[in-house]
């Protein structure tokens, strides 16, 4: 991972990128403010604030156990914060529940894959598009034309998401029979099928090779034209080249926030994260790391 050049040049060409940076300060699409989460004696998040602007790729980085996944779990309603608020388009979300998220236009990929192994790739992605269904139980029971039309529409959406993510050729396969990198893309396609305005990606590059990561970077950049993205990953090259802004967590605290260049040179970050990386003697982050998924 010595030359971030490829994803740098391909990635930064997107118009959404310049757009997001050029804006003075657009209203945040999604904001977390003053969030604190304690698990028993452990403070996983400590007064964390973060605002995601429209069409922005917002990076969240930090060493293992820094609280990145926990932050996502708070945003998704899996973990109730002990303090702090979460708001969307400026409106506080008081009773956030995971199942309401999709309807609000928020999609997330999990740190593990979280694919449905008994469902084909198409079916997996169709579940992601489920929020667009229109017909109910009775039409499914009687296989009424509305139900069939609904299925066609979902299949169509799934197909588009699969083509976007480049997994259309595996439509009829089961996830277990596919290479890990393809499975990751299926998980991405499933999230995209929900047509979200905010996409939360938890370590999308873990377990991928160098070329696959550059590809992913360009892809995420392209997505920013359609949605906002919060990207959690350990691959610094990816995060630095793709993100408009970065928030750095360490032991649950925000130790730095700002544009990639600012963050990169911040001594606190070097201390907390890059220092640790250098200490470990590899710049590759930790591949295939499987933490808790909430």
């Amino acid at each position, binding site marked *: 991972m010595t030359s971030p050049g490829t994803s740098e040049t391909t990635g930064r060409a997107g118009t959404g990128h310049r757009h997001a940076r050029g804006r003075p300060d657009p209203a945040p699409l999604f904001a977390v403010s003053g969030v604190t989460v304690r698990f028993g004696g452990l403070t996983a998040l400590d007064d964390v604030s973060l605002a995601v602007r429209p069409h922005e790729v917002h990076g969240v980085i930090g060493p293992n156990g820094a609280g990145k996944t926990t932050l996502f779990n708070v945003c998704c309603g899996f973990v109730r914060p002990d303090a702090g608020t979460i708001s969307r388009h400026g409106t506080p979300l008081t009773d956030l529940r995971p199942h309401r998220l999709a309807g609000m236009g928020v999609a997330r990929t999990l740190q593990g894959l*979280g*694919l*449905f192994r008994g469902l084909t790739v198409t079916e*997996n992605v169709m579940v992601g598009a489920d929020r667009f269904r229109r017909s109910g139980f009775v039409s*499914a029971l009687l296989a*009424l034309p509305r139900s069939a039309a609904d299925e066609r529409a979902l299949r169509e959406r799934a197909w588009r998401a699969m083509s976007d993510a480049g997994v259309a050729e595996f439509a009829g396969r089961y996830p*277990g*029979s596919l290479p890990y990198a393809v499975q990751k893309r299926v998980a991405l396609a*499933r999230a995209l099928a929900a047509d979200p305005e905010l996409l939360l990606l938890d370590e999308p590059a873990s377990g991928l090779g160098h070329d696959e990561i550059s590809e992913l970077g360009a892809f995420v950049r392209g997505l920013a034209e359609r949605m906002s993205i919060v990207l959690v990953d350990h691959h610094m090259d990816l995060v630095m080249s793709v993100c408009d802004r970065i928030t750095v967590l360490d032991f649950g605290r925000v130790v730095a926030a700002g544009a990639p260049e600012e963050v990169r040179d911040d001594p606190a970050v070097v201390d907390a994260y890059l220092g640790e990386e250098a200490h470990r003697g590899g710049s590759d982050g930790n591949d295939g790391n499987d933490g808790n998924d909430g």
Partner: protein
Amino acid sequence: MPDSVTAAARRLLPSSVLGRNLLGVLAGLLVVVVVLELTGPFRNSQFATMSYYAIAAVGLTVLTGLNGQISLGHGALMAVGAYTTGLLLETGAVPFPVAMLAAAAVTALAGVVVGAAAARLHGPYLAGATLALAVGVPGLAIYFDGVFGGEQGLRVSSPRPPDWLADAVYFVTAGDLTSARYLAYIGWITLLAVLLLLANLTASRYGRIWRAVRDDEVAAELAGVRLGRMRVLAFVVSAACAGLGGAVLAMVVRLAAPSGFTIVLSLSLLTAVVVGGLGSLTGALLGSALLVFLPPAVTGLGTDLGLTGTQAAELAPLVYGVVLVVVMLVAPGGVLGAVHRLRHAWTRRRQGARDVGAVGSSKQGG
């Protein structure tokens, strides 16, 4: 050659889910009529027995196979359906199809209650809770013996074929519409209707979401699925089927008594579903057939081999148990799973022969 034949056959099939399922059910009906007309009262009543096992088993396979919820209490749900039918038919004011629908509705209602409790439980806890149901419900029937007839149970007056129907059947087939045959028809027509509805459901969004919830609840919830609702819904659908199965049972056996709904019934249903192939409607049918036809066949074989009557009768559960264990060991996906695997391997071998070195050849996981 066979390729073009199947392709042609596929082109002839209707493309809609409903069309395909209706065609399947009509074909099934044809087979049922032929088989029931060609067999005598003894076989007829065996088929009637199979029908009520199968009605409950196809419902159970949706719950356990598709949605991943185990139930050891489906025998008790059948009891709810059977007693409801018995009580309604006793009044004499209700035609039997109405009694059956009422049985399904009452059992579905029971399913809401049980399902709501079950939706919060997992694995062994769910098994324990539904086991309690299986043990408790027959006890309830004994406790309230004023209504449910205690140990003796309720005598159920099963429907007799109306004269016009018997005449019409005689006119068409030149055979008598015996009571056994009539009951077998009722059972199988109910079964085919249930199969049609369940096949529609499993091909729809609901089947997909049930399986998604079974495979990964966090991911399903993130896609907007309300886990609890979908679990309860699966339980209700499954319970309604069990209730209908119980209704048919009551009419075929002419009795609804606690001894008919022991834990053995629940376990038999579960084994039928597992042997056939969890989650498959056809598998549940196969399993039910095995449940009904294997023991007498074994007993018959035993007596042919010179065993005494009791010895031969004791052989049946033994063989059934052995078959179960062998299936579990050799084909964990059930009979149908094994068939699918063989077919898959076969088509792949042929494909491999045609284009050697195709993409992603050998790595095919579970």
